[in-house]
């Protein structure tokens, strides 16, 4: 016996189905868990997908809620992922886009041209994970000091940091 909640979790939304019909090349994988939909987008299509989703009449994702990075672990391949949390203020639905990156090539195109708020989110992701956003107008550190070495939320960054302040 399946409950209603499980049915919701396992059924791809009409939105994703429509997107899959229109642009199947943008969708590498669809993950549905806990009632949330995640689409893994190939890296080269992320800007096109974002700008399409922003103006698409069925989506209208006019609000970029967050960009965050994740380090899956030093031995994992691909190691990094960048998550884009989209929200529509008119249709009131959410979508998560995910780009996975290899450790040797942590470049992804910037979406600052689509949502201007991506500027600081991308700076934060760069600061803490070392993901390079190509085409970003001002990719500087935002949280850590300007002369910081390394990226603090990577799994191989020592918890106590480097000198001069660490206790070894």
């Amino acid at each position, binding site marked *: 016996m399946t409950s209603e909640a499980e049915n919701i979790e396992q059924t791809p939304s009409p939105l994703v189905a429509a997107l899959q019909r229109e642009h199947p090349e943008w969708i590498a994988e669809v993950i549905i868990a806990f009632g949330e939909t995640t689409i893994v987008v190939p890296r080269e299509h992320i800007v096109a997908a974002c700008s399409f989703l922003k103006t698409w009449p069925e989506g209208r994702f006019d609000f970029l809620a967050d960009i965050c990075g994740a380090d899956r672990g030093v031995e994992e391949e691909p190691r990094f992922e960048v998550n884009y949390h989209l929200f529509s203020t008119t249709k009131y639905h959410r979508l998560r886009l995910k780009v996975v990156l290899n450790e040797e090539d*942590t470049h992804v195109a910037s979406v600052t041209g689509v949502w201007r708020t991506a500027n600081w989110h991308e700076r934060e992701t760069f600061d803490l994970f*070392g993901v*390079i956003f190509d085409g970003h107008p001002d*990719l*500087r*550190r935002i*949280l*850590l*000091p*300007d*002369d*910081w*070495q*390394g*990226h*603090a939320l*990577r799994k*191989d*960054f*020592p*918890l*106590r*940091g*480097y*000198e*001069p*302040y*660490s*206790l070894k």
Partner: protein
Amino acid sequence: MGLENVIAEALPEVLTTRLDSLINWARKSSLWPATFGLACCAIEMMNATTSRNDLARFGAEVFRASPRQADVMIVSGRVSRKMAPVLRRIYDQMPEPKWVISMGACATSGGVFDNYAIVQGVDKIVPVDVYIPGCPPRPEMLIHAVMMLQDKVMKESVRDRRDIPEEEAREAVVPGTLPVTDGSTARQNTLPESRPYTIASRHERRRSS
């Protein structure tokens, strides 16, 4: 200010000891703290000035927003590494004579924040006169620290303190402005050169020796 330099050179030691007690009494009776609330300890610091605790009884209630008008820096809370150069600059902007109270576990030793982001003790940045334990310390403990500092002030002499020469003060901290890294530094596995944020000014060297 410049007056004690003149006094210390012009007067014999016997006279300055008598003068010390007068000057120290005046100093300890009106300690003006700099407003430097960093974290939750700042709430207790504010509370110390309220009617219930009344730090004014000890002449230290005039919190100044400008370091140029302050005698005591109460470091109330955790000092992040990004805040460390700012804290040192504010300390450098305070005129002599000046004292530092390290309030709470975080300012004193880093507290529970034993990680890359927090300076493990503000005494790595500025010389500290009084440490207060606690997380956070109660306002009574801050008042006690102020009273201990007053005792300490009474034991000082005008001969001990001189203004830091201008050029020496300027050396202290330049917040880093290195260009953007592309992440390659993290992969090289090399330790960066240590960049000390502090230099010991003349009176600090004399106090620590």
